[in-house]
């Protein structure tokens, strides 16, 4: 069990290296191998989550004589790569394991008519590896490497349907943006290394001085990661890349953007947590979050392409998370305010990440089902599809009610946390949030009417419901939505509050590695 962190990273990698060899032998065996390995990884993730919940932060030192020997004996500085898993990492990895499993199952029949399926699944597993490594590593340069793995595999998968021109364009935009953001992150890592001669996050958090170079590095980290996340002035690549990818990959890309959000949290709260000028950075995040919510939803109402429309909604939902966590960051230096509403705001933001990671991939999958049925993403050519796609319609309704915060579904339970806690920080945030929620419901109603309602169109009479594996992939996420809907306080107590506390409590993260040294 002590090897769980590295096994979760290494097993998808091993299976990804095996997949081309197995795929030459048989296609079905390859699919079985991929799904079974992802199920096994999901079990490992849940076991690791229980371990973290009971025994606190897990540290794994690679290549040392013992996994918990983070600092060499008789030495003050960690020299090896260290994986450090705390509440927020485990929270994100649970989301990532569930969504990647659903996406893999969904892909099997979603790409059944295409060529190059073996390489598709290889890249999907590599993307899973990159996400897990991004969430578990405690080393800055290693974080950059895994970020690149996720970006490159994501770009290749976005451009998977090579016979359309727009897919190539979307993949090119994605990889250019990712490459430049990653290079800026690498430059900032070099700035930190030049001063403190270390790459370990815990050691840097202990030694950091917040000099001018650290401020430049913080700006580069923050803007690069928020661009990868899709924050509004930098969101322009986001719909281009997400709307053209295969639907299963779009569902996974949502979680990779959440993983970049995790990296931004890690930088702000853990690396710079002790010295950061919290109100300024918190207000930067809050203002960007307001812009993100409003511009995203207004652009979404305008869209006519179903996947672009959902991508803009993904952008606008990110705003809730930035606002919740930004309020928590803005009051970070003030324990009284943290206890009053900061912790609730951060819990709301983190809880909204969980809910968004459940219903947004579900909605993308239903959009992919529409594409699978009609062969187009254009809403103006759709209509009356509810006559033939009953399951897809039901799942779309579940996702719609959940994303627009209709009680009793889970979207509401996180939004109420955000509203009530953020209102005490500044009322305008809550008001904007409610307006955005209303516009979200309106735009999804519009899409629902134009795609599913109405008389059955003659050109779509012949088709039938999407294949079973796509339905299974969607039902996994719908089951997650129902679970979070029914047991909100269970989820909040066991997953959300530990995650938020591990963000607030910087000392624990440092002591887990530097504990032996004064």
């Amino acid at each position: 069990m002590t090897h769980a962190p590295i096994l979760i990273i290494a097993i998808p990698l091993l299976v990804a290296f095996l997949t081309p060899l197995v795929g030459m032998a048989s296609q079905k065996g390859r699919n079985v191998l991929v799904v079974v390995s992802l199920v096994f990884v999901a079990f490992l993730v849940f076991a690791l989550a229980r371990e973290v919940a009971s025994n606190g932060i897990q540290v794994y030192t690679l290549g040392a004589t013992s996994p918990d020997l983070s600092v060499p004996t008789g030495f003050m500085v960690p020299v090896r790569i260290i994986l450090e898993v705390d509440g927020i990492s485990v929270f994100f990895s649970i989301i990532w394991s569930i969504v990647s499993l659903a996406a893999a199952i969904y892909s099997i029949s979603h790409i059944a008519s295409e060529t190059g399926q073996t390489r598709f699944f290889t890249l999907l597993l590599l993307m899973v590896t990159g996400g897990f490594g991004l969430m578990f590593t405690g080393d800055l340069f290693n974080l950059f490497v895994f970020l690149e793995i996720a970006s490159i595999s994501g770009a290749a998968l976005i451009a998977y349907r090579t016979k359309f021109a727009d897919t190539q364009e979307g993949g090119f935009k994605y990889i250019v943006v990712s490459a430049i953001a990653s290079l800026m992150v690498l430059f900032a890592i070099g700035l930190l290394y030049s001063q403190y001669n270390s790459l370990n996050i815990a050691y840097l958090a202990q030694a950091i001085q917040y000099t001018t170079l650290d401020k430049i590095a913080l700006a580069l980290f923050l803007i690069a990661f928020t661009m990868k996340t899709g924050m509004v002035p930098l969101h322009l690549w986001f719909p281009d890349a997400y709307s053209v990818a295969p639907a299963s990959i779009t569902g996974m890309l949502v979680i990779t953007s959440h993983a970049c959000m995790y990296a931004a949290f890690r930088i702000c709260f853990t690396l710079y947590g002790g010295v950061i000028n919290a109100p300024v950075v918190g207000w930067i995040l809050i203002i960007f979050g307001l812009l993100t919510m409003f511009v995203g939803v207004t652009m979404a109402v305008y869209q006519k392409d179903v996947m672009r429309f959902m991508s803009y909604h993904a952008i606008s939902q990110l705003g809730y998370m930035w606002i919740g966590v930004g309020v928590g960051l803005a009051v970070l230096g003030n324990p009284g305010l943290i206890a009053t509403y900061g912790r609730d705001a951060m819990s709301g933001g983190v809880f909204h990440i969980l809910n968004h990671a459940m219903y947004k991939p579900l909605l993308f999958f239903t959009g992919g089902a529409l594409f699978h049925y009609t062969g187009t993403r254009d809403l103006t050519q759709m209509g009356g599809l509810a006559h033939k796609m009953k399951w897809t319609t039901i799942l779309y309704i579940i996702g719609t009610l959940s994303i627009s915060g209709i009680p009793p579904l889970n979207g509401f339970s996180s939004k109420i946390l955000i509203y009530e806690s953020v209102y005490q920080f500044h009322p305008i945030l809550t008001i904007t949030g409610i307006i955005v929620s209303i516009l979200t419901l309106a735009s999804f109603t519009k899409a629902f009417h134009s795609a599913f309602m109405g008389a059955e169109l003659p050109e779509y009479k012949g088709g039938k419901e999407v294949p079973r594996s796509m339905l299974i992939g969607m039902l996994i996420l719908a089951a997650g939505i129902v679970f979070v809907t029914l047991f909100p306080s269970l989820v909040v107590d066991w997953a959300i509050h530990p995650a938020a506390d591990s963000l607030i409590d910087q000392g624990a993260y440092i002591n887990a590695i530097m504990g032996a040294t004064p």
Partner: protein
Amino acid sequence: MMEHVPLDFPFIAAALLMGVSLYIIIFKKNLIKLIMGVAMLAAGVNLFLVALGYRAGGGAPIYTGVIKETMVMPVPQALTLTSIVINVAVLALMLTLVIRIYRHTGSLDSEKSRKLKG
């Protein structure tokens, strides 16, 4: 540290290289030139990284044969090696996508390949 300022030349060169490459990426509409800009940006970052580890009068950190007394720091060299290979991979994928775009649209102008907008 004024007496050391002239010695800072590699860092300044890295910063200027990054600036020039950012200018290319922003203002050149040709996709191949854009890829060249990304490669130059990577070169600037790599130059900065590898210049960090230099010690005055240091030799390569290898114990085979005759060596100097002072060795340069090994970690920045390892990081630079890794990032060079990563950038090779990124450039290969970018060029592939550009070839595909050229097959589809018949042009390398970034203003012509804007089917996705709004």
